[in-house]
């Protein structure tokens, strides 16, 4: 049980200019409409117990695909075949009613999944325990944080091991502790034979949870294969665009003040490169290079290049500059463009999202003369190292050794 297959699946939204046009079409008038294909020619099959990650940018059609597979939406063409009990976590909240308590909502959600009263009663304790809501379990959902709602939703959806588990990004909201708890449960389900279909923007999660990944782009399957390959492709062609959008969003969120300085020196370009290829997704424990292109608008004898990595919350994670490295980036002639590379033989950042701030200034500190200070010049992501996962912002090499045991310990 738990096999899933999709053949020639397509979804087309018929778009009319207005309701009036639709009415005309229904009445047989020759009204033009636009057929918007959001999914086309989607065929793949998933073996029982296999776990597949769906990746792709926003609007690529991932969520629509899940809706077709769960039967919430009807396909325009093609077939979906699912065997066994399906449990799906589509979007956030699952439609909890804000005025009712967690317990009451669990009951309704379980009924909605076709469970009987006795079944739910038997599971209620374990659902409450897993969600770890404490007293909140008997308080109205409107007082819950979004993280708490996700905890509850996940807890209900996975109260009974389904044959097929479909998760749509919902877990991104939870805190790290709960995410790990969820992944732990998902892993146990996997071992017990549950088929997993998982949508995520987070390459790290897909890599660690799935043995196969499908990249969807423009409503079609672009690549179907082992996660490493598929994610490489995803990183190479899709992430740069997403990241630049994310930076734009951040810039907007920050509301200006993002970049300042007198402009005598100017950072023309800044990017991470791995194996010569530009990327915004780095791998923990692997080499990485930071490439900069600096333009001198005046001749400059002595200056400093500084870099600062910050985490999602803006905490300083790592920073250094050419002064501390005892390096001389100058001199530069007026109008000269100079490329620089900061080589990290081993990137000891843990899997997470980071931003990189760059600065060009006069001496060891930026107070004397500030040429170009670029806050969050790059936002990037670090994905876990294959076979050497770690948590936290710091990825340290560590080894375990069996040593001679002291006598008294025996």
């Amino acid at each position, binding site marked *: 049980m738990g096999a899933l297959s999709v053949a020639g699946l397509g979804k087309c939204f018929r778009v009319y200019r207005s309701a009036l046009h639709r009415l005309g079409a229904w009445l047989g008038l020759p009204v033009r409409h636009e057929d918007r294909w959001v999914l086309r020619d989607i065929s793949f099959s998933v073996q029982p117990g296999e776990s597949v990650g769906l990746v792709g940018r926003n609007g690529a059609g991932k969520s629509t695909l899940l809706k077709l597979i769960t039967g919430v939406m009807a396909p325009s063409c093609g077939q*979906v075949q699912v065997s066994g009990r399906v449990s799906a976590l589509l979007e956030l909240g699952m439609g909890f009613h804000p005025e*009712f308590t967690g317990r009451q909502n669990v009951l309704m959600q379980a*009924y909605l999944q076709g469970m009987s009263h006795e079944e739910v009663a038997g599971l209620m304790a374990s659902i409450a325990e897993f969600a770890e809501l404490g007293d909140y379990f008997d308080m109205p959902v409107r007082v819950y944080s979004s993280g708490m709602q996700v905890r509850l939703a996940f807890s209900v959806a996975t109260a009974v091991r389904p044959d097929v588990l479909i998760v749509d990004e919902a877990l991104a909201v939870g805190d790290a502790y709960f995410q790990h708890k969820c992944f732990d449960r998902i892993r146990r389900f996997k071992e017990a034979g549950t088929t997993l279909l998982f949508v995520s923007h987070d390459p790290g999660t897909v890599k660690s949870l799935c043995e196969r990944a499908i990249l969807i782009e423009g409503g079609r399957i672009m690549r179907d294969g082992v996660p490493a390959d598929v994610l490489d492709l995803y990183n190479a062609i899709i992430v740069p665009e997403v990241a630049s959008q994310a930076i734009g969003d951040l810039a907007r969120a920050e509301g200006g003040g993002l970049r300042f300085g007198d402009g005598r020196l100017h950072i023309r370009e800044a990017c991470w490169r791995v194996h010569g290829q530009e990327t915004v997704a780095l791998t923990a424990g692997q080499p990485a290079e930071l490439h900069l292109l600096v333009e001198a608008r005046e001749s400059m004898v002595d200056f400093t290049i500084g870099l600062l990595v910050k985490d999602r919350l803006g905490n300083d994670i790592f920073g250094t500059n050419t002064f501390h490295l005892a390096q001389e980036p100058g001199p530069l002639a007026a109008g000269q463009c100079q490329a620089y590379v900061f080589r990290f033989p081993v990137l000891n950042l843990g899997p997470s999202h980071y931003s990189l701030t760059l600065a060009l200034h006069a001496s060891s500190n930026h107070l004397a003369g500030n040429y170009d200070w670029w806050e969050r010049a790059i936002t990037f992501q670090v994905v876990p190292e294959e076979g050497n996962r770690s948590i936290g912002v710091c990825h340290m090499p560590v080894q375990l050794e069996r040593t001679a045991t002291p006598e008294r310990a025996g």
Partner: protein
Amino acid sequence: MESKQSELGRVWHYRRFIAGTVLREFKGKFNRSILGALWLLLAPFAMISIYTLVFSHVMNARFSGAAGPYSYSIFICAGLLPWQWFSELLSRNVGLFVDNAGLIKKNNFPRMALPVINFCASGVNFLLAVLVFLVFLLAVGQWPGWPMLLAIPLLLLQSAFASVLGFFLGVLNVFFRDVANAMALILQFWFWFTPIIYHADVLSPRVAGYLALNPLMPVFQGYQGIFLEQAVPDWSALLPLVAFVAVMLPLTFWFYRRVGAEIVDEL
């Protein structure tokens, strides 16, 4: 994904969900109120009191030949309570898909459970109002006795009508949101087009002729006859409505099958 189980079977399988939703609706309404469910009884109580006070005492309205000072308020309540049910059920069904968009977009469940929920939830409202009405009848010594069971087939017929018509309009409303707005207006006209507040006898023959086009009229005259005179309804006059439901039912299913797949896309 489409299971081989019949739609009815699937609805039955989801009976817990249906019961839970209905119950939750009532709980939700009075969640943070002090009087709670008492409000459900106070509303019909207030309505019956107002009509009794205004028509029986202030305006002193009475039917010629009808016995008792309360005949007019009995007449009104006998029509008004079922009308409120009809109106609530119809408008809820018109909003069937649009109002439940969140549920429909996130869960795979038999959609036929929704009209059942509407029927039950509005039905409970009606039953509570009827309870108050019966207490009133008992209090004023106008207890109708067994003949009031004759109202049951009438109630079933009007609910079938409201469900089928409402479901059809509910599907239509997904694509043309004007439908719900229009129905709210039409229901007001329809109310005055039905002899509920007034007696059909007071109309001029020309107007009465138009009124005869209203398929709901014999249903309401049936209620009024039962509660006022313990009269057996004129079953044959109901035939047009029965025929309408019988034609509308397959038509609605055909329509739903045709555009049903597009409903989620439009929500």
